[in-house]
């Protein structure tokens, strides 16, 4: 695993935010690595542990707990559809189906143990996530870092087209 110098510089800067305990930097370091490599590999876990003077298990237990850390590669465009009540009432289950159809992802293959479905061409991935805190504009989804509000399930093609 090659960590580019500018990424490592950003990681080193983030560690300075925690003058009392380097261990506190586990989440920020993982976020920076995930942002660059798209998911957290075993090598990233080992690298983070070495960087912060921790045992690898102290990093791995964090990676496996938080849904925000991906342990498998997502697609080039990652879509997170909100599943929770207000969005579900506004049609988010249908929205998920439509995203899956539009990107060629098998809806049935997305479950608790395999939360991320990836399209055969590797272009898209879909995740059904819990409340995104935008219940007033339901249904919503996050495409990469962008929140899309009041998404019409019939118009998912238009949403995805913005990221092609």
């Amino acid at each position, binding site marked *: 695993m090659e960590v580019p110098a500018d990424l490592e510089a950003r990681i080193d800067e983030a560690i300075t*935010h925690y*003058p*009392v*305990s380097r*261990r*506190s*930097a*586990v*989440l*920020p370091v*993982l*976020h920076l690595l995930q942002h660059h490599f798209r998911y957290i590999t075993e090598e990233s876990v080992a690298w983070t542990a070495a960087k*912060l003077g921790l045992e690898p298990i*102290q990093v791995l*237990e*964090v990676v496996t*707990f*938080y*849904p*925000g*850390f991906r342990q498998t590669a997502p697609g080039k465009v990652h879509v*997170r559809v909100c*599943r*929770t*009540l*207000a969005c*579900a*009432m506004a049609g988010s289950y249908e929205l998920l189906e439509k995203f899956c159809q539009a990107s060629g992802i098998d809806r049935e293959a997305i479950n*608790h143990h395999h939360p991320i479905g990836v399209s055969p061409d590797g272009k898209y991935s879909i995740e059904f*996530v*819990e*409340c*995104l*805190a*935008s*219940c*007033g*504009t*339901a249904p919503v989804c*996050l495409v990469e*870092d*962008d*929140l899309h509000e009041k998404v019409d399930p019939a118009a998912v093609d238009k949403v995805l087209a913005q990221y092609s």
Partner: protein
Amino acid sequence: MASNPVEYLPGKQPHPREHRMIFRNVDRAGWDASIDTYLNDGGYEMAKKALKMERQDIINEVKASGLRGRGGAGFPTGVKWGFIPPTNTKPVYLICNADESEPGTFKDRYILHQDPHQLIEGMIISAFAVKANLAYIYIREEFPHAATIVEKAIAEAKNKGFLGKAIFGSDFDLEIYVHRGAGAYICGEETGLIESLEGKRPYPRIKPPYFPAALGLYMSPTIVNNVESLCHVKHILQMGGAEYAKLGTPNNTGTRILCVSGDVQKPGYYEVQVGKVTMGEVINDLCGGLKPGRTLKAIIPGGSSAKVLKADETYKLKDGRELTIWDIPMDFDTMAACGSMAGSGGVMIMDDSRSMAWVINNLNKFYQHESCGQCTPCREGSPWMAKISDRIIAGNASPDDVDMLEQVANQIEGKTICAFGEAASWPTQSFVRKFRDEIKSMTKADLAGRIVNEETKLAVAGLEA
């Protein structure tokens, strides 16, 4: 302070019943998140003023204001600050809880995106009052743009000398950093948040002894306050605690942002004086009423963990008043007297098109996903509830299953380290108790006594073999 006339973006005009204070600049025309815009509007004057005050005087103002935490528990903010041991010699930390994750709640996101300097100013005042030189803003991972905006705002403030060493020329130092979560609801629980900030799994700590004000981050005194609560501190200082307390109603002071979602014409955010509008006014005035031809069925009044209110209920209060669901004032105390809670301000409206079994199943799945797994009743009970309500909505349940659903919830409540146990069980208990007949009508009497679960069947077969 300069008070420029406030105009709002087209179509974003606040409702006349609103009292915009914290959300004064949300959707404001000509407004942006930059420090120059904030300074042109009189920003950071209260922080400057605070740093010349006695710390105890600030805490006294916050106590006098009656401000109650806007994150969910409604605990008085000034009292929380007062729990730092007077003999303390360790460093004190301030944490802003921006993990906004309670289903139905979506207010802090607008402060972070549109008015980050209001939060930073509130934090400077609060950090000074509790003697914290290091503060963190814990922002949920799903707010990536918010994190960028707040980080930029912090850099701007530092550049002006409002953060860092000897701020505003005083002898007070303060650094604020953004710390991002990673998609776990339990990080909104303050001791879970602290564990997460220490780089660990966010397993909540047992209280006592780990009350954060005494033993928090790095086992030092730590104050954890919600985004909205910290913003209120600025306005309390501006108005004076006693004057602030005139807003709202006694013991339920100030304003709060109601987040309304579900089956209304105009869902959204509405900042109102606490207790000065009723549930009926929220639905019919602020939100433009129910959808055409629909009638009200149920309301979750304070985030998904609050007990559901049923449309035809009446509530007898200790003072003799009898209220319908439409009459309930949107405050902390009356909502509690009606058997639910004002919680985080997330009001979820359900009309007669909604199946209550489907609703509780949706929430069961949320708590199943979010249980941290530390305590057995919650770790095992939350998925169990989801399994039962799964088969109820699939039409594969027996009438007994509905009672079992309630019993499982009863076995979680009060038996866990943190309040997640209550958060998971209260919705289930209240939905089953109030809509038992409807939910049972989805079950099949001839399935009574049946072992419905394939895994259980196999296990029983194994025992018998």
